[in-house]
């Protein structure tokens, strides 16, 4: 039987820790890149239906800038870094110095898009290398791909592998936050890690956990 049906709460806790370490490294990388204090929220790990995923990405018509990387190696999967369009625009302006750049009005300057892809590359790369160190699994990110579009249209791409075995996904989600002042923070992005169906067993085994422990 497919693993998702046998998932136990402690499995989710383990995945949460994986997300925690990965996103911690990514937040540090972003802090250095922007020279700002970047925080992160402890990852949420949930088993969600495809329907609920729509809500997770902010409703069906929510538009985001997303960087997508395919994870290759021993535990393949998909990884997304999504951020609100205005946040992405500000990030690009900051990195390139081009104050005219606006992700709300295409066509876009190649340089700006390239800068955003590079941010995604750095963040996802640091997330993934932490993940790889923890599990001792050999994992490599693909070249990043960028899309500015409806969040669910983008994320559904990452669900294709999972959709072959069921209508549920285990989503490892982390929120990255920028500290505005002592009292407030604003959301700077979300990470979504979606391992391929067969990768869960490999990840748990690498961490020394049997998937059949305590199953009913």
């Amino acid at each position, binding site marked *: 039987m497919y693993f998702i049906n046998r998932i136990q709460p402690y499995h989710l806790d383990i995945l949460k820790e994986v997300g925690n370490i990965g996103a911690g490294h990514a937040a540090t990388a972003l802090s250095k890149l922007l020279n700002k204090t970047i925080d992160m929220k402890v990852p949420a790990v949930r088993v969600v239906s495809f329907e609920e*995923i729509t809500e997770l990405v902010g409703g*069906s018509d929510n538009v985001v800038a997303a960087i997508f990387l395919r994870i290759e190696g021993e535990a393949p999967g998909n990884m997304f870094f999504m951020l609100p369009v205005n946040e992405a625009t500000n990030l690009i302006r900051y990195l390139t110095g081009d104050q005219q750049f606006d992700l709300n009005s295409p066509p876009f300057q190649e340089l700006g898009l390239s800068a955003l892809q590079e941010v995604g590359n750095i963040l996802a790369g640091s997330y993934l290398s932490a993940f790889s160190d923890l599990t001792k699994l050999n994992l490599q990110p693909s070249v990043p791909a960028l*899309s500015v579009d409806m969040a669910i249209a983008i994320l559904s791409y990452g669900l294709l592998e999972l959709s*072959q*075995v069921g*209508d549920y996904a285990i989503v490892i989600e982390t929120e990255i936050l920028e500290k505005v002042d002592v009292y407030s923070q604003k959301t700077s992005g979300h990470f979504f890690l979606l391992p391929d169906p067969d990768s869960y067993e490999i990840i748990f085994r690498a961490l020394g956990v049997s998937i059949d422990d305590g199953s009913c």
Partner: protein
Amino acid sequence: MMEVVKVGMADLNVATSPQKIRTSGLGSCVGVVIYDETTNICGMAHVMLPNSSLGKAELINKAKYADTALDVLLEKLLKMGVNQALLKAKLAGGSQMFKFSSTSEMMRIGPRNVEAVKEKLKELRIRIVAEDVGGTSGRTIEFDPLTSKLSIRTVSQGVSEI
């Protein structure tokens, strides 16, 4: 009352006027509308994968695959009293959200979904009267069975009608 019937990902549903039917955020998925103008009855499927033989689960969700979803949808429509000979179809979606130089067949899923839907409609002898497929954008579509118009919204090109 104007009500909009929502169709989720890998889901299907039917509607009659004055209802409308809508699905959001089609990426590589294909939205298929089958309708009968004489009865103002329509159905919509949000197809995710081309072929149910791809499914590895014991119990498959028939709404997910092109080859099984349209059979289920047709059956539902016939129960509601449509005239099979008068059925027409419109479709939208099947884009490639990311330009990837990958060898993975998964990356080409959009065009494959479109092909599979067309093949199935041909088999069911349902004529396609309009389509907006391919490209690299996500689409949100809404069909009005009263006017038989399918409105398509994208982030970059606004709203169009087919």
